[in-house]
């Protein structure tokens, strides 16, 4: 599969299964970007299920209005967050909503809804025609997403860390293709990649991580991408971009390793053809003694030297 899912499949499947046979459950699931989900049923009433999420940069997201976004999506199901978690959704398994599949799917999108808060704010700013300030979301330890709404476009910059320096070379090839895709496809966002130099939009940012293994990818979204019909899809794609990129880098490395293993094996076969299989016919006397003549052409230098 080329494209990654936007929702958390484990959460969705667990909820649907619990609608069919409710049982007590307490599980902690991890997702991309060090996000953890906790699914649990109430100790007293095992029909009440709570799904909580813990995100490292929730404080930043709160500044961008994540609470309002969650309230709009989950309505009455949103409750006060559990201890050590940032947001919780609670619902009753005994009274499923009319469309269970859609509801389970929307709970599984909890992470995506949290992270979409700054993007929604940016798009609203653009609709209202007032450009806003640069927003930073430090969603991983060493990496961040920067969102800058401008007059008629939205610029999003990813700062990505590559732990393996070979990844940097592969990423350059991949991101060059993204930048070139504009030539064949119309109406796509503009993509630019710079390896060490941070792009101009980030020149005012403090604590910017720059280095050999850091790259910056800039997306420019235009009006058609932010229109109401396409807005949700655009947000989905932008949020999973970094994981999508790394996933395909790893796939391509795995494919290359498999190829190399095959060709090394075929080299070995060719080399083995070069061996002359000497059938050592051991001659025996009637009494059972075996011997090998010294001038036997099959006696190699090794045996003469008496070595290895």
């Amino acid at each position, binding site marked *: 599969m*080329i494209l990654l899912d936007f929702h958390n499949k484990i959460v969705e499947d667990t909820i649907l299964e619990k609608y069919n046979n409710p049982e007590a459950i307490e599980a902690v699931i991890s997702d991309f970007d060090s996000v953890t989900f906790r699914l649990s049923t109430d100790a007293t009433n095992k029909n009440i299920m709570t799904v909580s999420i813990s995100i490292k940069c929730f404080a930043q997201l709160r500044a961008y209005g994540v609470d309002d976004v969650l309230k709009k999506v989950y309505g009455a199901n949103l409750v006060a967050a559990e201890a050590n978690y940032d947001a919780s959704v609670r619902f009753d398994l005994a009274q499923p909503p009319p469309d269970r599949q859609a509801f389970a799917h929307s709970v599984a999108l909890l992470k995506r809804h949290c992270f979409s808060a700054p993007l929604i704010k940016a798009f609203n700013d653009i609709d209202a025609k007032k450009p806003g300030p640069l927003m930073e979301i430090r969603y991983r330890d060493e990496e961040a997403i920067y969102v800058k709404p401008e007059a008629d476009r939205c610029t999003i910059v990813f700062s990505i860390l590559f732990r393996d320096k070979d990844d940097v*070379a592969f990423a350059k*090839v991949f991101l060059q293709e993204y930048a070139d895709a504009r030539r064949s496809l119309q109406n796509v966002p503009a993509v630019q990649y710079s390896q060490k130099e941070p792009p101009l939009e980030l020149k005012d940012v403090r604590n910017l991580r720059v280095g050999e293994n850091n790259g910056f990818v800039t997306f420019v979204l235009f009006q058609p991408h932010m229109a109401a019909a396409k807005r949700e899809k655009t947000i989905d*794609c932008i949020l999973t971009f970094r994981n999508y990129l790394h996933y395909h880098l790893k796939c391509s490395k795995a494919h*290359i390793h498999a190829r190399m293993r095959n060709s090394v094996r075929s080299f070995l076969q*060719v080399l083995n053809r070069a061996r002359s299989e000497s059938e050592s016919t051991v001659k025996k006397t009637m009494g059972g003694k075996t011997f090998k003549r010294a001038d036997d052409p099959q006696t190699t230098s090794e045996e003469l*030297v008496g070595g290895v």
Partner: protein
Amino acid sequence: MSQALKPYLNAVRHTVDAALCLQNFGSMNVERHNKPEVEARTNKELLLNPVVISRNAKEKVLIEGSINSVRVSLKIKQIDELEQILCRRFTRFMTQRAENFVILRRKPISPDYDISFLITNFQTERMWKHKLVDFIIQFMEEIDKEISEMKLSVNARARITAQEFLKQFV
């Protein structure tokens, strides 16, 4: 094989053929020891003149001979960073399996070269000489082909994933 490569590979083939005339020769310095003289390099009279066959500055073959062993070192063509990475991984894959490959040396001679073979008289006695030479020549052709195919596959994958991703926005 491509026409441009033919004279280069022919020259290498004939030189390796000539160099692979090996006979058993015990060590003159240590009693009862038998060392590959091209590695030990203790006695000048046992070593032949090294020959470098180069196609261009980036691609060459060094053949060092001696009385009981031959060392063949290759420098593989790598144009850009991605090819360097692929070449380095490929040679590492091979050198880690050097025990199975018998004639392979675990490290190239100098950072100038990418991979080295060491062939001793014991190995030429066990193997057909013309097939050994065939193997070396085939290796040189195949590795260039493999590296450029892998680079193409990375580029193709990059293009497909980029298009799939960006198509979602349209």
